[in-house]
């Protein structure tokens, strides 16, 4: 295998895991744009959704039926979290909100352990084994499938936000909630929808990554760190940035793992942290974000 095909091989694999980071980053960015909140529990909510899917499949439902049911449950769950956990602290000091989402993280993690135990579960593979051979570079069906799913999610979000009146209302709320209120928009409901949407997008990332990582309550912990790196890199307010950031982080991860000997597989998790640090130092608003403006 030549050096070039070897490099390309690493890039392809990086894109595959990057797509997973991208979808969780997308969920983080959605919440942040709507509410200004960084939701530390986003990964855990995704993990919970994944358990729902696993439970449905384990009780005999075909996967492709369990998936839409899971997404619907996640949507409702996200709305519920907004209403019960987040709404009471909306407008409280930032640190309070951070602590609440960290508390939610711990609670959901423990809850999943309580219900499903901490033993690893095998999650059904959604995509067939095998793949394509493109000039010596092997592209697994699962990699293509994951990239395809994330592209579809991205496309649907784009349609929702840019071409529907509900999407317009959601963007208005994200932009200026008090003015939205004066226009008669029920901002509370829209925020609930935003959390529901984010939980659904997050659920996609959990379901995509579960066959690779195996399902257990701490499955999303690592993914969350990569997703944070992706969202920071892309810009915490930019859905496009989240996806691009996710792909870059995924590729950076595999490349450093493969080529930088001191890092190797064990220290790979340092990569997203370095990316976060570097972005915050050099370009805090990220690649696609706007520089912070003071809102009047």
């Amino acid at each position, binding site marked *: 295998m030549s050096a070039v095909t070897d490099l390309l091989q690493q890039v392809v694999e990086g894109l595959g895991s990057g797509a997973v980071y991208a979808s969780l980053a997308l969920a983080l960015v959605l919440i942040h744009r709507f509410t200004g909140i960084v939701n530390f529990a986003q990964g855990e909510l995704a993990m919970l959704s994944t358990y729902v899917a696993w439970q449905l499949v384990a009780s005999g439902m075909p996967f492709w039926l369990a998936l839409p049911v899971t997404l619907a449950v996640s949507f409702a769950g996200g709305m519920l979290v907004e209403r019960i956990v987040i709404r009471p602290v909306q407008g409280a000091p930032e640190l309070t909100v951070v602590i609440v989402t960290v508390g939610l993280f711990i609670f959901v993690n423990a809850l999943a352990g309580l219900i499903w135990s901490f033993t690893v579960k095998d999650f059904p593979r959604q995509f067939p084994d095998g793949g394509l051979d493109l000039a010596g570079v092997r592209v697994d069906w699962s990699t293509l499938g994951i990239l395809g799913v994330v592209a579809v999610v991205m496309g649907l979000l784009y349609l929702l936000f840019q071409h529907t*009146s509900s999407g*317009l*209302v959601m*963007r*208005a709320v*994200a*932009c*200026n909630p*008090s*003015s*939205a*209120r*004066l*226009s*008669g*928009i*029920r*901002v509370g409901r829209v925020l609930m929808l935003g959390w529901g949407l984010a939980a659904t997008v997050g659920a996609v990332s959990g379901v995509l990554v579960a066959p690779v990582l195996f399902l257990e309550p701490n499955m999303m912990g690592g993914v969350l760190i990569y997703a944070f790196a992706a969202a920071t890199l892309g810009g915490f307010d930019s859905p496009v940035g989240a996806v691009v950031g996710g792909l870059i982080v995924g590729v950076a991860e595999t490349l450093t793992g493969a080529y930088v000997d001191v890092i190797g597989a064990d220290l790979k998790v340092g990569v997203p942290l370095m990316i976060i640090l570097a972005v915050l130092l050099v370009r805090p608003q990220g690649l696609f974000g706007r520089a912070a403006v003071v809102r*009047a």
Partner: protein
Amino acid sequence: MSEPTTGRTEPGASAEPDVPEVSGTTGRTEAGASAEPDFLKVSGLHAGYGRARVLQGLDFSVARGEVCAILGPNGAGKTTTLRALSGMAGGRGSVTLDGTELLGRSPEQAARLGVAHVPEGRGTFNDLTVEENLRIGAHLRTARRWRGRAERAAVTADLERIYGHFPRLRQRSRQAAGSLSGGEQQMLAIGRALIRRPALLLLDEPSLGLAPLVTRELFEIVRAVNEEERTTVVVVEQNARLALDIAHRAHVLEAGRLVLSGPAARIREDGHIAEVYLGVPAHARKAG
């Protein structure tokens, strides 16, 4: 020279019983004096922020189709008055619009009851285009019904109506609203309010930060809208002369109380009051 009434009026009594109705020679006369003088009725309105009490019992009425100006120095409570009407500030007392109580409603409920508040700072949706801003304004007109073809046609007609009032917004319809000039953003804010044909339009210092020419244009549009669409307007201004030009009636607010009420034309022509609004402090006037 007859003095306009000063001091508070009795709650429950009609707003300014002692002010004689004088038809102004150059100003506007009472609009719809025959019909619904209490379309908006504010009685004993107290409002504030937490422990800071700002409004100390306001009483006034606005007839349907009338433009009412609320004047007064900085900090008098003009903004707070509008906020109490639109649900942005809580209050005690009573505010009814066409007989429906507004106090205790959330801003979104007040909006659904027909109150359109153009706030201080204009409330622009910066990331949205000009046209999307207007569509958000029209949201209430479309939200309740199924968005069929007829509905889309109605929104298009509404947009045309607004662009008719504000041709400059049409030129910039695809531009991000955050990139507009202050005057254009004020036009957009008023357009966003008007597109839903509100029962009551509340304008908070529309002239703030705008060039005099732009302000004049804006006030002329408000006058035209009031005449053509019979929209009831409450406008709050520090620029008294401008507001009095388009208002039928005016009230002067000082330290949370109405100190003077009367037909706009009378107030405008009263040299003494003009003097007050040219900057003589309140205590000097009281002493005189």
